[in-house]
C-alpha cells in the first residue's frame, strides 16, 4: 500500500474514534483540551483521564505489535528546540482552545468558523517555520 493509503486508513480510524465520543458521550475529541482539563482536575475529568489512558494503551499496543507501515528517515532535533516547540504548542493550544484534532477534525466537521480560522492560521505558521528552517539550514 502506498503511504497516502495508510494515511487515509489512519484518518478514517481517527474519524471513527471522534464519532464514537460524539455520538455516545456528546464530547469533542480535542487532545489539547482533554489534556488541559485533566491537568487541572476539572469536575468532569474522569472520562478525560480514561480517554488519555486509552490513547497511551493504543500507542503501546501499536508499538509492541511492531506494526509500522510507514518508514521515514529519522530526524534529530536538539533538546533546546524540543523544549521551545513544546512550550509553544502547550501555551498556543491553551490560548487558542484547540489543536489539530479539536479544531482540525471536530471543529471543521461541525462547520465552526472559529475552528476554520484556527486551522488556516496554524497550518500557515507551521508551513512557514518548517520551510524557513529548511531553507536557512540548506544555505548554511
Amino acid at each position: 500500500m502506498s503511504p497516502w493509503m495508510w494515511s487515509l486508513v489512519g484518518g478514517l480510524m481517527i474519524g471513527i474514534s471522534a464519532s464514537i465520543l460524539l455520538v455516545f458521550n456528546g464530547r469533542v475529541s480535542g487532545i489539547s483540551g482533554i489534556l488541559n482539563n485533566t491537568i487541572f482536575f476539572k469536575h468532569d475529568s474522569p472520562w478525560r483521564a480514561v480517554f488519555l489512558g486509552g490513547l497511551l494503551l493504543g500507542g503501546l499496543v501499536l508499538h509492541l505489535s511492531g506494526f509500522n507501515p510507514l518508514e521515514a528517515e529519522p530526524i534529530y532535533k536538539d533538546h533546546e528546540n524540543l523544549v521551545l516547540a513544546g512550550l509553544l504548542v502547550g501555551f498556543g493550544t491553551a490560548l487558542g482552545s484547540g489543536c489539530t484534532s479539536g479544531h482540525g477534525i471536530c471543529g471543521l466537521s461541525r462547520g465552526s468558523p472559529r475552528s476554520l480560522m484556527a486551522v488556516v492560521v496554524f497550518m500557515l505558521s507551521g508551513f512557514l517555520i518548517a520551510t524557513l528552517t529548511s531553507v536557512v539550514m540548506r544555505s548554511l
Partner: protein
Amino acid sequence: MNKQTKYQLLTAGISGFLFALGLGISGMTLPQKIIGFLDVSSANWDPSLLFVMIGALAIHAPVSLWMKKKSHPLLDQQMHLPTKTKIDSSIVIGAVLFGLGWGIAGFCPGPALVSMTQFSKASSFIFVAAMVLGIVAHHYFQKSKEKQKNSQAS
C-alpha cells in the same frame, strides 16, 4: 457511579484507543513526516498527510451533521460542545504559536503523547514535559489577566 457514567468511561477509553491506532497508522506520530509535509521547499515534498484529514472528515463531518439534529448523545442528557464562536485575538495568536511549535518539532499534542509509548524516543518525553509546562503557564497567565481586569473594574 451509575451505569451510564460507567458506559461513558468505556466509550471514552475505546475512543482514545482507536485514536492512537489511527494516529500511528496514518504517519502522524512520525515528526519527520510532519516536517516533510510542512516543508514545501523540499525536493521530495510529501503531501500524503492531507489524506489523514480527508479520511477523518469523511467520517466525522457527516456524523457531526447528523448529531446536530439530536438533542442529546446516547449516553448523556445533553451535548457538551464548545460554546465560543467569536473569532478573537486569542484564537489567532494561539494558533500562530501552536503552528510554530508544530513546525519546529513535528509534534502536535496527540501524536506526542502516543510517541511516549515508544520508550526509545526521549524526544517525545522532553516535548510533552515542555507542553505541559506551556499549558500550566497559560493557566497562570489567564489568571493574572483576570485579576488585572477585576482590579480595574472595582
